[in-house]
């Protein structure tokens, strides 16, 4: 494959940054459309990626490899497999839609889009990098634009939320750096090539694996976030502007689970088996605790934020089971949660822009006033609570099926989470959209065409995956079978 498609996907948004910076501050409309264009091209390329991906094999495809820093053993090494292709597509899609959703930003527009495109560069890079040094660079590069996006365009407590996010994630990732160095010096010959490290993994001593696993786990657990490392999430999600919340929930959280699947399982197989039960317990806490906290929320955005904690718990449960079905459920959940929660944050933003409040109790009977909005919102809530026929059901079902043979009691308790999730979403729908119309919202306007445009692709995919999941299942199968095989042998 001579066409370096992955490099284009990573660096076309970077060209977009240059384009945005060249434009004058006053050319707001041009800046917006330039950003839309430069985030649309990677989306087109990602369709190409989906079309040309050969799902019959678990080997890396679209590989690019160049020497970069020979004396440190660093190469520029990109590639994609059944795990990264769906994530690259999701990143391209959500980035493009978020740029469109950000057209209502009127304040420091130029900086906003420059930072946003830099964020896309980092996200694409994480999912495509196969050299640890490169992986770490992209992993960290994202933190800076995220800090600014939350800190400048965020809500009332934006500065606190921004620095908290930055410190938390940096704290996690520096431990990953130690882990990377430890792996580098243990491998023979020394290498940062992730594929090479995976093939050497069986040679690693168990004690070594148990320690280094924890170093990586800290980085990934903070990103997911796994209880008790989740406290940055409600602050960051709630204070961030709408589009940034979408990216946070839709992509950034997935990097944690992606890291677990790409690094933790195949590189530390013995540790993965050893820590499976503690991981499952943490997943259970995430699912049930996250859902219970949602019940108590009055702020709509906060509720959606905590629902992420709960939903990411299913991913972790699927991983901890170490079965093909469980891990596939995890990837389905990563994809599906990206679609659904992305859309939910967009819709919360739509309402907040008009009503300037997110208090669930402040609304009532909105169905009568804004039926289209209500319909779309309800659809995504159903997706989130796992209504059969929508993607959330498939993923949760697969997680439960896959992990039940391994952790019977934990799965039985985790099903509680589904019930609580249904309860808080239905309670929210009832309070906001049903009942008597609160006349205070007489002037509320219906969702606009542009806003609808940002959520419809997500709705189509959510229904598509829910009704006909086999294309996605086929795409990820070979890769995940290989990962599970590497661990359980």
């Amino acid at each position, binding site marked *: 494959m001579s066409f370096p498609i992955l490099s284009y996907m990573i660096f076309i948004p970077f060209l977009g940054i240059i384009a945005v910076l060249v434009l004058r501050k006053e050319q707001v409309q041009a800046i917006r459309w330039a950003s839309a264009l430069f985030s649309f091209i990677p989306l087109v390329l990602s369709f190409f990626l989906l079309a040309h991906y050969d799902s019959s094999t678990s080997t890396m495809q679209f590989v690019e490899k160049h020497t970069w*820093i020979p*004396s440190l053993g660093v190469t520029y090494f990109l590639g994609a497999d059944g795990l990264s292709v769906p994530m690259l597509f999701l990143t391209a899609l959500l980035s493009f839609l978020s740029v469109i959703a950000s057209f209502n930003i009127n304040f420091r527009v130029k900086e906003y889009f420059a930072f946003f495109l830099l964020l896309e560069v980092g996200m694409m890079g994480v999912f495509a990098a196969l050299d640890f040094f490169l992986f770490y660079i992209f992993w960290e590069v994202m933190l800076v634009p995220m800090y600014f996006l939350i800190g400048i365009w965020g809500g009332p407590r934006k500065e606190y939320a921004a620095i908290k996010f930055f410190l938390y994630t940096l704290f996690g990732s*520096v431990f990953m750096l130690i882990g990377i160095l430890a792996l580098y*010096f243990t491998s023979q010959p020394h290498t940062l090539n992730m594929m090479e490290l995976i093939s050497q993994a069986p040679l690693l001593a168990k004690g070594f694996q148990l320690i280094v696993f924890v170093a990586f786990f800290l980085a990934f657990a903070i990103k997911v976030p796994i209880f008790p490392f989740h406290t940055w999430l409600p602050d960051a999600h709630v204070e961030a502007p709408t589009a940034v919340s979408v990216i946070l929930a839709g992509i950034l959280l997935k990097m944690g689970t992606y890291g677990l699947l790409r690094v933790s399982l195949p590189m530390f197989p013995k540790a993965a088996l050893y820590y499976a039960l503690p991981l499952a317990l943490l997943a259970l806490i995430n699912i049930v605790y996250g859902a219970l906290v949602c019940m108590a929320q009055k702020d709509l955005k906060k509720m959606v934020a905590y629902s992420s904690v709960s939903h990411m718990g299913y991913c972790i449960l699927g991983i901890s089971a170490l079965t093909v079905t469980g891990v596939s459920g995890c990837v389905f959940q990563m994809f599906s949660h990206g679609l659904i929660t992305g859309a939910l944050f967009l819709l919360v933003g739509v309402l907040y822009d008009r009503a300037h409040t997110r208090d669930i109790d402040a609304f009532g009977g909105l169905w009568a006033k804004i039926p289209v909005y209500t319909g779309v919102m309800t659809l995504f809530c159903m997706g989130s609570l796992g209504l059969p026929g929508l993607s959330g059901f498939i993923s949760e079902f697969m997680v439960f099926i896959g992990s039940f043979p391994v952790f019977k009691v934990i799965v039985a308790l985790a099903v509680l989470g589904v019930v609580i999730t249904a309860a808080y979403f239905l309670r929210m729908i009832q309070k906001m959209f049903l009942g008597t119309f609160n006349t205070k919202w007489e002037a509320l306007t219906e969702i606009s065409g542009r806003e609808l445009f940002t959520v419809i692709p997500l709705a189509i995919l959510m229904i598509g995956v829910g009704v006909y999941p086999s294309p996605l299942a086929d795409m990820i199968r070979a890769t995940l079978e290989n990962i599970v095989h590497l661990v359980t042998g």
Partner: protein
Amino acid sequence: MYFISIFPEIFLFLWTILIFVVDFFLKEDKRKNLGYLSLLGILITIILLFFSAQGEMFGKAYSYDSLSLFFKLVFLLSAFLAISVSIDFVAKFRAFKGEFFGLILFSTVGMMLLSSARELIFLYVSLELVTIPLYVLAAYLKPDKKSAEAGLKYMLLGAISSAILLYGISLIYGITGTTFLLGIKTRLMVDYLQIGPIGPGLFLSFIFFIAGFGFKLALVPFHMWAPDVYEGAPTPITAFLSVGSKAAGLVAFLRVFFESFSVYNPDWVTIVAVLAALSMIIGNIIALPQTNIKRMLAYSSIAQMGYILVGLVAISERGVSSVAFYTLAYLFANLGAFVVAIAFELQTGSSEIKDYSGLSRTSPTLSFLMMIFLLSLVGIPPLAGFVGKYFLFASAIEKNLIWLVVIAILTSVISLYYYVGVIREMYFHKKEGGEKIFLPFGIKLALIICIIGVLLVGLFPNPFLDLASQAALVFKY
């Protein structure tokens, strides 16, 4: 055709004399041109470095090798940047004399000699040539009380540290009967084989050497002078102190300990490791509450020296090359941050961090550069500081110094908070009536060099890594 090894130093020395002489014949308003003349001299010296033969002189007292080449480039680069930003800064002085530039150059000559010194008396005299001009420069803002205090404090503590170093030298001379580094090494090796473990006299002299160099490097607990001196001195001098003079202390440290004392590595390395840990912890924690950018950078540079020592403690080829490499990465980022602070101070007269608020609105480019420099100091990829820290930590992990690396990375996370504090002021806060910061030519030039350095060393580090790994070949491990 190659010149003799010491030719670059001789040339720069003569050029400095020339500057003093020309100074007499220039009118007050033309004296700024002496700055450009000094820059020209530095450029010629850099070229001469590559046309001078590498080798030993004066019976192995002076050695021009790949290590000294690397550090000579570092010194010349930091002198170049310091003079370049001073050209417009000197207008602040009541009675400006051309000697300001001349003194910086004299100190640079001292640093260059020091990096080649392989004999203790030679080393000591070079070190004095480095610091004595700096005492004068620190007090250059004479009517300003803080500057006078800085000069006096620096001189007193500098004199004490020199005396301690000299004590160490005399002990070593007493024990080994020589002042040549190579001779000391041979003698200590023989002693080690015949007598065995380290004696109290030798141990004491190690401690004196560490304390003496520790003062120059401003390591905790020898750092007390640094913040006051950094705050009081004219800012370009502070910048020069924080990079050039520290790199000079570092190279002297490397020469003495890695060449002469290598037999007793385990005896001194633990002390240095503890000082490194203390410097990282205390430097970073005290930097947190600072409100003045010069003081903040002073404490941060104490911590940065701690990081550099992490590579030194590894005592390996990889370790020494990571020390050299990080020095270069630190040079660009730290001087870059100081250049921005100087530009800001020139116009507003303030170096308080809170006065930076809203700077991104009035001077977007300057704020952006400041952000890059600060993020590089934190070690955020893909900037120079990241590659440097990665390399340092790699060399320490290779030697299983996990505890030191854990301290280093945790304190790096702490450092994020105060570095980003400046970014927060610039980008998140608003200020009424701020105006665009004017950038004179010298400052523009320095900023361009620093930003290119930070990006180049971060993204395409190969040539610099090669230079650094050659520098590390000087020692045997």
